């Protein structure tokens, strides 16, 4: 019977640990994305003071 309980613990433990890991990974990535968007937006807005410059979208 110990084998059975060990089996259940190991299998479900593995699955549970993986589940925790992917949730944590997703959260960490979402935060990183938010950071990138925030910095880029802030950076872009730094140039907003110059009206002429902002109307030019991208340089080839």
């Amino acid at each position, binding site marked *: *019977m110990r*084998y*059975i*309980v*060990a*089996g*259940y613990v*190991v*299998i*479900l433990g*593995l*699955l549970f640990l*993986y*589940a925790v890991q*992917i*949730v944590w*990974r*997703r959260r960490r*990535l*979402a935060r*990183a*994305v938010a950071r*990138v*968007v925030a*910095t*880029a*937006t*802030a*950076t*872009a*807005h*730094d*140039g*907003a*003071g*110059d009206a002429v*410059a*902002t109307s*030019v*979208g*991208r*340089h*080839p």
Partner: protein
Amino acid sequence: MSDLEPVTDRTHGSPVPAAADTGPTPPPARSARSRATERVIGVLALVGTVFTVWLGLWVTPPDRTQGDLVRLVYLHPGVAWVALYLAFGLAAVSSVLYLWPRTRSLFWDRLAAASVEVGVVFNVCTLVSGSIWGKPTWGVWWAWDARLTLTAVLLVLFLGYLALRRIPAEPEVRARRSAFVALFAVLDVPLVHFSVNWWNTLHQGATVLNPGLTLKIHGSMAWTLLLGFVSLTLAFVWMLLVRYRIGVLEDWLDANELDAALAERRSEGAGPGHTVPSEPVGVA
């Protein structure tokens, strides 16, 4: 590409507005409905698994021949089915769909990658649960039985797939490479199956793994078995959804992180009053 041509988000087909001065486009947000669905599936999977454990370990009676060992059968075929057929099968189909020009979309590639990663986890669970069952039953932790060997070969094949994906490359290049590897791995499965089966017609221990108790199965055992299958399948789906989202976010970061950092550097040097051109990149 002209300045004003809208960048098309190839995944979803919708044009991404050229954001000249509002920074990179964030990745598509998940709708409230998709988040709710994911939560529901997750909860159902969890509840189902807890019930399976309760039923499996306490409520159901021990088997006439196997005794308490039968309790592992509530989990083992379930994880095996998820890994071998559901996960790797889905990965193979997604890979084909990615390679097929008509349906080519990085969505399939990400789905395949997510499916393989989750499948590998379930594959490990399959081998471990089988091994734990095998020790008291056959006295050995491992046997070169057809099923075991095939499952182990599958694990190695798809670990190779994951290793290949780690190598940095353009998303499309990586997707094609991975798709080919997945395809070759799948083609090999029937071949290995035949060879290992022929190899092991000597010690036909394989039949022991079959739940032969389906014939004289006690009511509660059948239900527990079914519940185990369903719960594990739901768990797979939930994990797939989360892992897929991780793929989307990772790809977006790869595409945009450098640009954002560069933009930051440039703005530090330029000072106020200068526009920093930013190249919006949708998650393709």
